[in-house]
């Protein structure tokens, strides 16, 4: 096979320009401050050289086949060329200090790039890049089972190291502070532990794949015994249920709060999933209903003079009312947009969302809704003497709400109404010609979606104790929409995975907060290019997006 140098160089340069970009915006330098394994590997390395590795791997993959040696050469060239742009930056910096214009191109960055050795260090930089590119190329060339094992192992170590906060917290809560010091040095994995972990995961994956491959094909293909499958499912449910129930004890206060955030967005996502995923109505003003829920809860229970409830309402009485109010507004805002489809619907709902926020902020409604000062002193829920004042207890509240919402979602999906939504999403006219009342069907989607959102808003208000108009900005709607798309439109497990990925994980990486939206954007683009159906897609969308890949029996007409 001939090596296509143009393709190889292209991948290398794409990697190189990305590395240059990440360096110049300060990401590399910031990431370099966080050690992953001992003091030798930090997150800056992961970002920079991970790119070189990817360049080598992708360049080799673009060649489809070839000998291992060719893979190595391709990877090496891609890796070396990926180092060029950043190397040029280092050289340029030597002669023209750029820090006045590019704040992040500073000595700290240069020291990191040159291994603290000045210009001669560039040689080392090229060496490292070339080596990583070579490894990436080789990685693509080795047999699949080895590749899976090594890949999973590396990914596992990287995840443990990057989310070491989470791991150390769990270890502390389970086995005490001392256990952490066995595995970690400050936040970084000890090198020996990292190696052991890598080997353990790789060995596990390798053995499992082997066993699967060795099992007689007939047994693997035969449909699982139904009872056994059911038992497996029940066991899985029990384990997940138990984990959810004890999560706050394992995770501690801060992580419980992260879980609360995830739960809040699961609620939002489940509601929006009904509107967008089931009924196919693209609603960009979804945050409005979240605001209705929160403000209803706030205004009914606050102890300030904004209180509209006359002191009668506690959290539990106000909760159903908050949901009802949201449902009502869901229907009210649904009416004007009944005849709108697709993009037009998205624009109008976007407008609605903003109107609601601006109304809450306005001086006109200030006597009722508190204007920019918001609604303060919303009491925490309390039942049978249990006060929900800690993140841990609020977690249970949002968990219960999310479970109810998930249950309702599942039942709705399989109901007549679910089919109505699906038919309407596919073709509104035909659905109508089948006898479906599309007006009613649409309004029900808006109403139920709004109800879930309102529930989330009410709990949110009680958790924070005060609410402000700016908590209900467009970004919440966008977040909710992104998470259901990333998770998989129309899929309930997808909503949960999406919420963890887009809301939970960023909370764990707060130190890199300023690049959150950048990473978010990159993730979305990569996701849509490579896996448009989402992490855990619903059956119908999988069928749609991969319809071309279904092997059909030949037509005989």
């Amino acid at each position, binding site marked *: 096979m001939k090596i296509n140098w143009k393709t190889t160089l292209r991948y290398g340069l794409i990697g190189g320009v990305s590395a240059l970009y990440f360096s110049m915006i300060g990401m590399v330098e910031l990431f370099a401050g966080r050690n992953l394994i001992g003091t030798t590997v930090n997150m800056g390395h992961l970002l920079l050289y991970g790119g070189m590795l990817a360049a080598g791997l992708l360049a080799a993959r673009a060649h489809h086949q070839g000998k291992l040696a060719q893979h190595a050469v391709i990877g090496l060239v891609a890796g070396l060329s990926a180092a060029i742009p950043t190397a040029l930056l280092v050289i340029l910096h030597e002669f023209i200090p750029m820090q006045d214009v590019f704040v992040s191109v500073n000595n700290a960055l240069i020291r990191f790039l040159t291994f603290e050795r000045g210009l001669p260090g560039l040689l080392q930089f090229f060496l490292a890049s070339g080596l990583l590119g070579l490894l990436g190329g080789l990685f693509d060339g080795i047999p699949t089972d080895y590749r899976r094992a090594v890949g999973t192992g590396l990914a596992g170590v990287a995840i443990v190291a990057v989310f070491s906060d989470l791991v150390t917290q769990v270890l502390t809560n389970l086995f005490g502070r001392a256990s952490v010091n066995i595995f970690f040095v400050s936040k970084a994995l000890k090198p020996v532990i990292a190696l052991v972990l890598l080997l353990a995961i790789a060995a596990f994956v390798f053995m499992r794949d082997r066993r699967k491959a060795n099992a007689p094909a007939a047994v693997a293909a035969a449909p699982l015994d139904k009872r056994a499958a059911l038992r497996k499912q029940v066991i899985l449910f029990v384990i997940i249920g138990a984990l959810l129930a004890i999560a706050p004890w394992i995770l501690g206060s801060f992580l419980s709060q992260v879980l609360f955030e995830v739960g809040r967005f699961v609620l939002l996502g489940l509601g929006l999933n009904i509107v967008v995923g089931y009924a196919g109505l693209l609603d960009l003003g979804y945050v409005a209903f979240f605001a209705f829920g929160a403000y209803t809860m706030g205004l009914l229970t606050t102890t300030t003079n904004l209180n509209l409830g006359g002191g009668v309402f506690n959290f539990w009485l106000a909760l159903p009312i908050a949901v009802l109010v949201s449902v009502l507004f869901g229907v009210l805002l649904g009416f004007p947009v009944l005849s709108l489809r697709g993009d037009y619907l998205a624009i109008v709902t976007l407008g609605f969302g903003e109107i609601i926020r601006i109304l809450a902020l306005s001086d006109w409604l200030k006597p009722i809704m508190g204007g920019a000062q918001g609604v303060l002193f919303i009491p925490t829920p309390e039942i049978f003497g249990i006060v929900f004042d800690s993140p841990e207890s609020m977690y249970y509240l949002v968990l219960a709400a999310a479970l109810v919402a998930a249950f309702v979602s599942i039942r709705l999906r399989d109901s007549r109404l679910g089919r109505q939504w*699906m038919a309407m999403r*596919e073709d509104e*006219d035909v659905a*109508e*010609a089948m006898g479906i009342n599309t007006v009613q069907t649409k309004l029900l989607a808006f109403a139920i979606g709004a109800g879930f959102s309102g529930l989330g808003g009410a709990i949110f208000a009680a958790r924070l104790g005060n609410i402000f108009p700016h908590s209900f900005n467009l970004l919440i709607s966008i977040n909710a929409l992104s998470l259901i798309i990333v998770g998989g439109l129309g899929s309930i497990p997808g909503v949960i995975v999406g919420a963890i990925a887009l809301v939970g994980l960023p909370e764990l990486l707060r130190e890199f907060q300023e690049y959150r939206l950048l990473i978010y954007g990159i993730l979305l683009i990569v996701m849509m290019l490579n896996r448009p159906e989402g992490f855990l897609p619903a059956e119908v969308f999988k*069928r*749609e997006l991969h319809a071309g890949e279904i092997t059909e029996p030949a037509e005989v007409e």
Partner: protein
Amino acid sequence: MAMLEVHDIHTYYGNIHALKGISLEVNQGEIVTLIGANGAGKTTTLRTISGLLRPRQGTITLNGELISELPAHELVYKGIAMVPEGRGVFAKMSVQENLEMGAYHRNDKAVITSDLEYVFGLFPRLKERRRQVSGTLSGGEQQMLATGRALMSKPTLLLMDEPSMGLAPILVEGIFDTIQAINKEGTTVLLVEQNALMALSIAHRGYVLQTGQIVLTDKADKLKKDPTVQKAYLGVD
């Protein structure tokens, strides 16, 4: 009294006057066809009858009952079913799910099951592919599916919009045979077609539309011999 009576309907798209006073009748047990060139108003007429468009003027009655005021989804309950232009199958649903949507407004599970078997009897091809996603069916199969789905609502009047569109001639023949079979079993059919020759060969009567008006109506075999029809739609000089 005719089963379906359309009296002087005028339908607009915004300011465009698409139907300029269409009147037609369909009697119990007939196959009636609307033929005409592109843009003559055939589909508009059908969509107006099925309630998806609303006439600005004129009335439509079904068995003496005024239906031109009713929303589309209620007409299904009155016994009207439509096979839309371009077939309009629910692409992401399986074949069987599509057929079940046709019986959406009914609640009699046992009868629905037997109707499903009836449709599978008409189109054995659909039975073979009942679990397949309908978006992956061929054009001919999708037309069968759309027809079968309409039949699942047990219609007394079946509206068909261009069933021959985009299909190979041999498939068109099959579809038209089926229409005749359905008709023989008691379903009245109103058929819109560009393929005038095929339509007139199975229909009892026909209407010729031109720019939103009916210019000619007669028995189908007489229309076939009519010189203007022959010249304009049958390609006979």
